[in-house]
């Protein structure tokens, strides 16, 4: 059964009854009823409508045409929200007798009364016809200002209903989106926000308008956020965006959000009406970005480190190569240089000793200076060799009794000690962890130095004393020799530096440099104090134990 609705009349007051009557007459006319039949149908409908009017809530009358089946009917349908049979009984009793059939039903506490009036028009009632009738009702000239008003009112109600439905739909839609959607007035006050605002911040529109979002926005981001909110951006502007950290209601954590607002401009008006915007959680993205940035930085640092390491490795390689070359040099010096010098020395000596009669005086002198020069060169090469052999690889640390070392050094120097009549006083010395050979060299070189630079008139006296300072042993070698000006101190411990000419004092200029290298390789140091003509004191400070080194 299909009913086509053609018109409806709400029943609010007596005036509506006139409207009901008029509509029914018209419907009858359209359905091809005679004037008396029209009146009969209109009377029946009016009867039940009057009853409905007596209810407080009023009702609604819907006029339809039913076209299914063989029979066709005009159908007046009255909907009344208040169910009251008594109220209807009288009018309904009367109306029943005027129509072909009727139907009373109750659905959800609403009374539904349908009156059917048979029609048999000489034309087909199809969709086009129904639409034509509808338009006719709609275009009906109002019979009174009341009807005019009522119609407008109905239209408004209809519209408002539609707006409400639409609004509800939009609200549902905005709430279903996982973001805060809001609108702002021109002063930056919230007008509307979906429920996510409260869900996230725990604040309401009013509380946020009151506090100016102060408790919600991170203090470092507040300025830019507030600026975006409050600053009146004039027309022509488009969407503005900023990022800020917003606090979640459940904790102290601030999460990054993107805030975007756009001006809402009505099509008809040029002015900005209000602002609409959204706030969306971009924390994951932001953290990801930060992590990426950090990673990139880390990668850069790593690359830099790698590069540095490669450079370092290159340097180490070069250094190792250079060290190796130096060792090779020492080897070459030990063999290839020494052998020719030895030959020079040997044969000049051989000539001096065995060819005494065949060389004249002049030739003898030349040979003599050649022999001396070869001897000096041999010493020089040997000293250089000694110097180059003092390195980390050669060192062998053991507990060494320095008393023994001193004794050995004196034995090595026996000849020169006797020659000069030197007296050497040695205090009792401790045992320290060191390399025996190097210690012997150190003691020997310093004592030899003192004997060498003694005053020609005085027999050398050397006092060797020691004292322990923390973990270091400080040895001092004091002599009564010629001394030196302290301004030469810096040069004295470097290679080939000599304060005196070779004629006065023999030497290669390597002795003290060797001492310094030995002291340094043990983690100690060497220095001296002196005055010209008043002797010198050499100090050597050495760690007692190499483990602390």
């Amino acid at each position, binding site marked *: 059964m299909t009913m086509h609705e053609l018109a409806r009349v709400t029943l609010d007051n007596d005036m509506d009854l006139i409207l009901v009557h008029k509509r029914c007459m018209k419907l009858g006319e359209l359905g091809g009823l005679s004037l008396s039949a029209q009146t009969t149908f209109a009377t029946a409908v009016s009867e039940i409508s009057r009853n409905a009017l007596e209810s407080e809530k009023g009702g609604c009358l819907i006029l339809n045409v039913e076209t299914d089946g063989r029979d066709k009917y005009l159908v007046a349908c009255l909907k009344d929200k208040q169910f009251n049979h008594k109220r209807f009984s009288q009018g309904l009793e009367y109306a029943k007798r005027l129509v072909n059939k009727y139907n009373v039903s109750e659905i959800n506490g609403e009374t539904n009364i349908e009156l059917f009036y048979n029609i048999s028009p000489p034309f087909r009632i199809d969709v086009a016809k129904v639409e034509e009738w509808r338009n006719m009702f709609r275009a009906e000239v109002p019979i009174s200002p009341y009807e005019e008003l009522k119609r407008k009112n109905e239209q408004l109600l209809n519209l408002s209903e539609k707006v409400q439905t639409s609004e509800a739909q939009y609200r549902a839609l905005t709430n279903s989106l996982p973001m805060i959607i809001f609108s702002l007035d021109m002063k930056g006050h919230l007008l509307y926000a979906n429920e996510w605002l409260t869900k996230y911040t725990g604040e309401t529109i009013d509380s946020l308008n009151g506090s100016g979002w102060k408790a919600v926005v991170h203090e470092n981001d507040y300025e830019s956020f507030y600026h975006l909110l409050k600053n009146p951006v004039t027309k022509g502007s488009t969407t503005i965006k900023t990022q800020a950290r917003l606090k979640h209601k459940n904790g102290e954590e601030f999460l990054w959000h993107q805030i975007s607002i756009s001006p809402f401009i009505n099509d008809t008006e040029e002015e900005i009406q209000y602002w609409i915007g959204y706030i969306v959680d971009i924390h994951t993205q932001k953290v990801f970005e930060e992590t990426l940035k950090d990673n990139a930085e880390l990668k850069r640092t790593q690359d830099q480190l790698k590069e540095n390491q490669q450079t370092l490795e290159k340097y180490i390689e070069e250094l190792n190569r250079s060290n190796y070359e130096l060792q090779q040099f020492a080897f070459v010096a*030990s063999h290839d240089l020494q052998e020719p010098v030895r030959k020079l020395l*040997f044969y000049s000596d051989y000539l001096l*000793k065995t060819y005494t009669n065949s060389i004249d005086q002049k030739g003898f002198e030349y040979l003599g200076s050649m022999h001396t020069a070869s001897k000096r060169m041999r010493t020089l090469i040997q000293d250089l060799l000694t110097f180059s052999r003092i390195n980390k690889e050669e060192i062998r640390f053991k507990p060494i009794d320095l008393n023994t070392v001193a004794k050995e050094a004196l034995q090595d120097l026996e000849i020169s000690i006797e020659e000069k009549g030197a007296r050497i006083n040695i205090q009792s010395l401790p045992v320290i962890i060191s390399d025996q050979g190097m210690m012997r060299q150190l003691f020997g070189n310093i004592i030899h130095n003192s004997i060498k630079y003694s005053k020609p008139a005085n027999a050398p006296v050397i006092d060797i004393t020691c004292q322990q300072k923390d973990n270091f042993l400080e040895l001092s070698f004091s002599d009564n020799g010629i001394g030196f000006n302290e301004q030469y101190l810096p040069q004295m411990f470097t290679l080939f530096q000599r304060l005196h000419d070779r004629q006065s004092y023999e030497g290669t200029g390597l002795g003290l440099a060797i001492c310094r290298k030995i002291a340094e390789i043990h983690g100690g140091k060497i220095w001296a104090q002196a005055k010209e003509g008043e002797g010198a004191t050499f100090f050597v400070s050495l760690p007692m134990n190499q483990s602390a080194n």
Partner: protein
Amino acid sequence: MRDAMTLLNVNDIIWPALNGELAWNILQKNFESSLIPCLIVLDLNMPKMNGTQTLSKIKNDNRFKEIPVIIYSTSINPLEKEKCILLGAHSYITKPVSFEESIETARIFLQFCQKLLA
């Protein structure tokens, strides 16, 4: 050194060789005539086959390994010295720098051989 030996009138008991390879040839040649030296004096720095190589070859040959070898060189670094001792060198003598020293060295060699023969 040969001069020194001449002075001691013992020049004819020496077989001099310019390098390790020649020394090896001499050793083998004389072995065929059942002649074995009572002492080998070996320089380290030699062309073709150097001192340590020669030493190792001698000490690894059953025919010659009992012959004492004295290393005779200008100078020797501690590492090389250790290597020579490990290879079986008897001792080590630095080459002389004076006439007196050379006579002294020659005398030492001679005494060494005489002691061995006694």
